[in-house]
């Protein structure tokens, strides 16, 4: 089936540094999402993105977070600067339409030290 790839699978950085999480969505999909899952907790919605714009974001999507998909390449989540509470698994997803199936990547585990 369609695949969403997330690179890298695990990233370790020092608090205060910048990090960019990369997502290669399904090629013809138009909607892109980031979710955050802290260890032992449920997966929480961060942001969704369509047509070059943020359509919706949650309270977890702090000012230090940004997303973009320049020229149809990777859909990225940038955190600058990182904080300890940003440690989590970040799942990327994409869908063809806004109420279609979400296809998830395997997640990137971010460890902020």
């Amino acid at each position, binding site marked *: 089936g369609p695949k969403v790839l997330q690179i890298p699978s695990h990233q370790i950085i020092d608090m205060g540094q910048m990090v960019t999480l990369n997502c290669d969505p399904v090629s013809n999909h138009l909607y892109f999402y980031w979710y955050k899952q802290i260890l032992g*907790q*449920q997966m929480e919605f961060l942001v969704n993105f369509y047509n070059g714009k943020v*359509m*919706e974001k949650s309270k977890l999507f702090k000012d230090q977070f940004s997303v973009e998909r320049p020229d149809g390449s990777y859909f990225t989540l940038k955190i600058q600067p990182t904080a300890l509470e940003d440690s989590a698994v970040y799942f990327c997803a994409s869908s063809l339409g806004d109420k279609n199936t979400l296809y*998830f990547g395997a997640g990137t585990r971010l460890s902020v030290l």
Partner: protein
Amino acid sequence: GQQVKQSSPSLTVQEGGISILNCDYENDMFDYFAWYKKYPDNSPTLLISVRSNVDKREDGRLTVFLNKSGKHFSLHITASQPEDTAVYLCAAGARNNNAPRFGAGTKLSVKP
């Protein structure tokens, strides 16, 4: 707050029995409801979804029941099999480009 809740973190069912997974939601605007299945170390994958204009949808051994007045939906798996063992995530979303919100998951174990 948590807009979608799965109150049972785990469920054990005997092979051949019916597995019933439950989900409650808070947002009246939700009009899309789905169940995803997740194996350990894998991504969630969609099992079945419904829109709010129906109360029930069947697909093979799977049936989703939607109770809009009670803000509740459930997944019934008949003739449960050991390979149904996984974490089941419910999800709900609203109109106007709202992304689905997910429950915490229920770990289903089907015993031979």
